[in-house]
């Protein structure tokens, strides 16, 4: 019987004692690493972890802030039962789904079209790319005030133009038009960002497949359907998921322009949560709404993720 003798272990640079390597004098102590990440870690703990745990705990209380910590009474699942029966909440859910369901696909489709257009050789392409990306980095307040003037039902540029065609929407002064107006603003603000992401993905698309398709005589649509779209699918899913999460948390423009109105026509779930917590001081109930919203967005995200599995070009 022969016994194989394992070869003697070779000491790699990684395994060398610190005194022998280039980092001489520094022990591979966990404390060094901890010290480096400590500032970030403290931020995460203070501004993410503690608030997150607090919200989860508060969701099971009827706390109203002004009663102080002594005024926290646990009420079990009462808040969640109340949410199920709250017409205001379900109205907000419906409006949020409408807002997300229209603004996200529109933003993605227009962003894709713009990305493809900006990927072609155009005069002043760099300037155009920057111009389309600009709305994404402009301050929300500036955007809001500009659109408020543009969409003034009487004196705004938008309606003065639409008047030519005999159309005169009330925009933010109409419960029927306020949400569409917000969708227009959201799409306008997001298209540039989407196009930029698509642009980088398009530049990574496999050129040899296009060359092969050209040799086979494939048309523009066939190339888009069979090469471009599958190669962009992971990017599209990424954009759909992040935009869905962002839109379902949409708050700034609503707070600035409509305050949830007219009536409750723009009271989306995040604004309803704000009203409940910061105007009615029902922090326990608002926390429960936050948890339910989180669960809803999580389910939506998982469904989107699941839907794309196995369809991308690389899969």
């Amino acid at each position, binding site marked *: 019987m022969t016994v194989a003798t394992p070869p003697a272990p070779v000491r790699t640079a990684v395994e060398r004692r610190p005194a022998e390597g280039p980092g001489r004098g520094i022990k591979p102590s966990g*404390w060094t690493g901890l010290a480096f990440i400590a500032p970030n870690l403290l931020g995460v703990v203070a501004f993410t972890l503690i608030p997150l745990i607090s919200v989860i705990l508060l969701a099971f209380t009827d706390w*109203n802030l002004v*009663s102080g910590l002594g005024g926290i009474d646990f009420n079990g699942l009462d808040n969640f039962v109340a949410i199920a029966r709250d017409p205001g909440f379900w109205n907000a859910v419906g409006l949020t789904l409408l807002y997300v369901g229209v603004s996200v696909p529109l933003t993605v489709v227009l962003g894709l079209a713009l990305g493809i257009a900006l990927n072609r050789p155009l005069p002043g392409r760099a300037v155009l790319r920057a111009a389309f990306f600009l709305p994404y980095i402009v301050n929300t307040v500036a955007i809001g005030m500009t659109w408020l003037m543009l*969409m003034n039902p009487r004196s705004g540029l938008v309606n003065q133009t639409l008047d030519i065609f005999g159309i005169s929407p009330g925009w933010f002064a109409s*419960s029927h038009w306020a949400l569409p107006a917000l969708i227009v603003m959201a799409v306008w603000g997001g298209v540039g960002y989407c196009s930029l992401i698509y642009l980088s993905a398009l530049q990574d698309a496999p050129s040899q497949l296009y060359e092969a398709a050209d040799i086979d005589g494939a048309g523009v649509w066939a190339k888009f359907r069979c090469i471009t779209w599958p190669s962009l699918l992971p990017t599209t899913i990424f954009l759909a998921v992040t935009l869905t999460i962002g839109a379902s948390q949409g708050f700034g423009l609503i707070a600035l322009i409509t305050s949830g*109105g007219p009536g409750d026509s723009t009271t989306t779930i995040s604004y309803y949560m704000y009203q409940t917590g910061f105007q009615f001081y029902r922090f326990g109930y608002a926390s429960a709404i936050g948890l339910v919203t989180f669960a809803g967005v999580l389910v939506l995200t998982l469904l989107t993720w699941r839907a794309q599995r196995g369809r991308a070009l690389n899969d």
Partner: protein
Amino acid sequence: MRGELSRRRFLAGAGAVGAAGLLPGCSGDERGSEILQVWGGVPAASGPGKVVEAFQRKFPQYKVNYTRFVNDPRGNLKLDTALQGGLDIDVYFTYTSASLALRAGSGMAADLTDRVKADLELALFLDAEQPRAFVEDGRVKALATAREPYFVLVNETLRRQAGVELPRRWTIDEFRATARSLTTDRTVGAYTVPDLARISLGPDYWYGEDGKSNFDDPVFEQTLATGRAMIDEGSTFRWSEVLARHLNTYQQNSFLKAEFNLWPTAPFNLRYLYDGKLYPHDFKVGFVPPPTVPGGGDWNGGSYNNFVMMNPKSAKTEAAWQFIKFWLTEGSAPMLAGGKIPTLGNVTDDQLVTGLLGKEPDKYFDLDSFRRVVLQAEPKLATDTKLAGFPEITLAYNQQRDLCWLGEKAPGPAIREVYRLANAAIARNEGSA
């Protein structure tokens, strides 16, 4: 060993950082304990600064630090978290009924009953007919520092051009007729209709005797219907214009630009009308009392408000009380600059004229009508004491009013929806109380 970071060194460093943060905090508390901390919503330059100066002159043993918070939901939240977080606040002001109920009902307001009862100068605060204090369970928790009568301001140039007499009193129908007469191609007659229900029903007008809301009283529907009718006939602003331009917040700008003529408002807006440099305009302003509602009460529609409260956690209760009393009595005059008429009326007519109307009252105001409406009249003012679900009801009313005045909902269904939502809010709040 240099460059080596041991657990001991790490903990020592963290401890040093913590101590560095802690020590200034300690010294801050020490300083804070000597200084009376007052939080209010009026900018220091609009009166509080001078009140504080006068107080420190009279009581040199006390130092006062006045902190201004913006009187909006975010500003009030800041004050509430500061009070709950144990920040050094001795005296603070409350301007909204919703905050008043929450703070008084949550142990954030000291009981001032015995101090008020012991002071003859403050006897008016015990008046139950027209309460000037917020009383909870028979205990005084907050004292109104300002009386805020409503009136209707009139652009005198436009009124004369239209050949309309300046009314001395009027009903709501006469108000509407005057607004129609003053409406031209370039000017709207009135900004909006006054709150007829408040004028007719007085304090606690949202709450019925049966523990439900009072929105089934016909005067609420009358208010919405009158407003809608005036919008339809063009004698008030179109509500779509009000919402699109956020005119509720910037009414003064439109009045100064003579976009409308009749302005139902309160003294705090006079500050925009006496400063010709900051707010240029070339017309005088006249005063008319709010319109009456036939068959209704004779309330003015205004109220006692700007409540001062003492933090029960204050360690300087004597100094805090001295300051509160000073603000209410001899120190109140500087607040006139911001349109705050002292609750106790302890200022002369001359002080009221120069305080409310600036250095050139003749230039910008019709003084005869001012004297008649503000100085000589004794309007019935209200102080609300029932406040269950107040913020929810406010939102419900505003939402339905918007829909009604935009022409999307008739006054009847709109007010019935308010009634339903208000009942639910009252029941929820009473249930959780």
